[in-house]
């Protein structure tokens, strides 16, 4: 048995000794490497490792959390005492006794990544070379500026709780992101391309750095040449990345159990209601699907499952931890996640994506006939009543069901509930993508790796502005 198991079991025993009703304890180790290049020059190299243990205790109806990065028996004992102490303090703030809902352990049944070239077995110089292949390609193509991020985060998680549940898994994400800027006749064009996944470096055998770089460079030239057209309501094709952003940002957050249980979400009390068209489905899963982020268990040890948030237009589920599930008397969905051992788990998304339809990609464009095609995201915002504004990384004009020419700076605005009603078709193929840069932020816990995606979505109409 490893040292970590010994320390975790000690923590659970101590918690029981101090009178905790229930406790769960996590060991986490994460190693990270980030390299940032400007053209071919390495501008920063961030290497670090983060190791620690955290404990949740339920004590006399209240919940307390404590952690330590010092892994010896004394520090563990002190951590448990501290958790009990803060639970006591919290008990004066709670109205009703709280506890996690009952959970009958199940196994994770989704896809398990096989890592062929684990980053820990690959030299730093080789990683630099991989990134440089795409950089060289971009410089040959005549970019004005080119910024590259290579990143990796990998490690180990061990979970135990006082009901005897044990989990152990090895999270991993690697990725490469290229940002291109091109200039011509005083005009500037920008685009980027991200390829990240819960895989090893074999990811870049399948998706070559050159091809990733080319997408960024071509996108920047397209953006430079982009035409401007009148802003207004147009039919829309959203690519998987753009659809995924909407699924996560403007809908997913509204289904998070803590928002729902505190009645902060507009979706409170609306389970079973038809919110969208028959073609609108949104799924949430710990399964990475293809290029998503792998979460086999959440940080309460619950095996993740694929959950329909929206199925054929109907609101089907909220996302829950064992804690929020208890508040609403529902089933935990494996969405309790913490960014690291310094934080208790809260309700977070994993991979959030629109569900597939029965069309080919070509048919999606044909259905839309004439309108705008939005590819990837360039930031934006959404509020707690589902009103969103998202910029597209790249955008094109569709005529006769075909892509005709690039558009400049496209922004899509709308209300998520209208958006869901306007979905008229979706492709069979679904892509989910995570990112080594950024992620989701909530309650000071950012950036948490998540996956976003979907099929190619046909949308009857959306409010679109072109040209900024």
């Amino acid at each position, binding site marked *: 048995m490893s040292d970590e198991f010994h320390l975790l079991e000690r923590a659970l025993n101590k918690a029981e000794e101090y009178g905790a009703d229930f406790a769960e304890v996590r060991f986490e180790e994460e190693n990270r490497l980030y390299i940032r290049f400007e053209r071919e020059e390495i501008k920063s190299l961030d290497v670090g490792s983060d190791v620690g243990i955290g404990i949740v205790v339920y004590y006399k109806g*209240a919940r307390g959390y404590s952690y330590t990065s010092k892994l010896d028996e004394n520090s563990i004992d002190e951590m448990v005492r501290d958790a009990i102490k803060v639970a006591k303090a919290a008990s*004066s703030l709670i109205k009703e006794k709280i506890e996690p809902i009952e959970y009958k352990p199940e196994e994770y049944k989704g896809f398990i990544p096989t890592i062929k070239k684990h980053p820990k077995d690959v030299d730093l110089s080789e990683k630099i070379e991989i990134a440089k292949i795409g950089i060289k390609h971009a410089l040959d193509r005549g970019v004005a500026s080119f910024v590259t991020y290579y990143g990796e985060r990998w490690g180990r998680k061990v979970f135990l709780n006082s009901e005897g549940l044990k989990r152990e898994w090895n999270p991993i994400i690697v990725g490469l992101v290229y940002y291109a800027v091109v200039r011509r006749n005083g005009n500037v064009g920008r685009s980027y391309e991200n390829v990240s996944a819960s895989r090893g470096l074999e990811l870049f055998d399948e998706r070559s750095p050159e091809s990733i770089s080319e997408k960024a460079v071509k996108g920047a030239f397209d953006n430079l040449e982009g035409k401007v057209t009148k802003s207004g309501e147009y039919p829309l094709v959203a690519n998987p990345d753009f659809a995924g952003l909407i699924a996560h940002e403007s809908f997913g957050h509204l289904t998070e159990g803590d928002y729902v249980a505190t009645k902060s979400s507009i979706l409170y009390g609306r389970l079973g209601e038809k919110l969208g068209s028959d073609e609108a489905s949104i799924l949430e899963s710990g399964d990475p699907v293809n290029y998503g982020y792998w979460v086999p268990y959440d940080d309460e040890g619950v095996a993740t499952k694929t959950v329909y948030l929206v199925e054929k237009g109907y609101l089907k589920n909220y996302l829950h931890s064992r804690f929020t599930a208890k508040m609403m008397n529902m089933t935990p969905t494996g969405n309790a996640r913490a960014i690291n051992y310094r934080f208790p788990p809260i309700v977070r998304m994993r991979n959030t994506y629109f569900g597939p339809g029965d069309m080919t990609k070509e048919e999606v464009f044909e259905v839309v006939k004439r309108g705008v095609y939005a590819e990837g995201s360039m930031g934006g915002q959404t509020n707690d009543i589902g009103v969103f504004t998202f910029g597209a990384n790249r955008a094109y004009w569709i005529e006769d069901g075909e892509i005709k020419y690039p558009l400049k700076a496209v922004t899509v605005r709308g209300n998520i509930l209208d958006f869901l009603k306007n979905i008229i078709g979706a492709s069979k193929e679904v892509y989910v993508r995570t990112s080594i840069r950024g992620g989701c932020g909530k309650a000071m816990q950012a950036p948490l790796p998540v996956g976003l995606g979907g099929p190619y979505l046909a949308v009857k109409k959306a409010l679109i502005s072109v040209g900024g």
Partner: protein
Amino acid sequence: MSLEIVAEEIVKKGEAKGFDEIEVYLVRERSSLIQIIESLVTAKTGKELGVGIRASIGKKVGFISVSTLDLKRIDSILEHLKSIVLSRPEDKDFNGFADPKSAKHLGGLIDESISDPPLDEIAKEIKVSFETIRKLDYVVKVEYHITLADMEVVIANSRNLLTKDRMTYAIAFSEIKGKNETLAMDYHASRNLEIEKLIGVLNKSAETVKEFLDAKKLTEPFEGAAVIANKEVPNFFQNFIDYNFSALNIQENRSKFVGKLNEKVAEDRVTILDNPENPNALLSLKYDGEGVPTYKKALIENGVLKTYLYDVYSARREGKESTGNGVRMNYKSQPTPSPLSVEILPTSNKNASELVSELDKGVFIKGFIMGSHMSDVINGVFSLTSLESYYVENGELKYPIKSVTITGNFFDLLNNIIEIGNDTEITFGGVYPSILVKGLKFI
């Protein structure tokens, strides 16, 4: 084992590994948080011991950080660092780490009660305020966080430098959503545990929500003057000062202040300091993130730019001494030149409402500002949205404005300061008074 011994031990091991120079930055932090969002309560506390190590071989420099200090692992960490150092290109401007020097002041205020805070008592106080406010008929949602932290920093390097520093701080934050789409926010930050003020932000936010229930939109956009309340002044200053005074950004020719040393950049009445010697400032320390003693200095004195801010690297590049401004965000980051604690000196003995009484037509920017992180720090352009501002006419508050966007330029603002109050408030980046300025646009 004391932190100093650990730090020196790592330096020794590093030297034995073959590094020419090595620097160890150790942080021990103990922090507690109580957070309440409606019926959801989170209470946590924890301890962390982190280390950031920089080392060099010849002109090659590398950095690594680890969150745990198991001396058994240190060998493999240093081995990893060595491979990082060797993979780096030579940096001709690197001339080693800091030389030892003694502190120039006593450092900031330390509140021992923060290292073992009375959480029960704090929770009970929160409960009283929280429940009173939650019962108000115009309140829709209440959120409150309080963080208490005690941090010790030890720095050692192979030039026999060894420094030790400590700080304590408490930060409370409240956000209340009210009817009619009102939203109010407030915070309090201090080196010591001022429980009454830390809990008081809840009441202040509730009062703001009530005042803004019948807020109105501005009838038309206009250009004019404003009083910016002390706590909100950093939104208009901090990012721009942080970026443009950095000697590194001057050397790389990406600061607006290139070539402006001893030149006039602001109104005569404007004096801005970097003052880590103020014991009440939130982040005052005796030494910067490289172990160089910190001290008080004028950035702008009577409108004239007096100095850029240097860390050891940027200073040696010019054959100068570091100004003690090698700032680290945390042990995971490397030092970079930045102010430690900004202070704007008063030109009057007025507070915000007295400054407002001098305003013919304009806006009193009282709180809840969003968008400062989107500012264009190089060109000085900002576009901020405030949810807590008032329309002012003839020196009187006429009505609360339902969301106003304020646009302007930092470099113009320096020349548009009319009067500076003396109602200083401790903020995250320094100690700021309320100010009266002209030349802003309100939409």
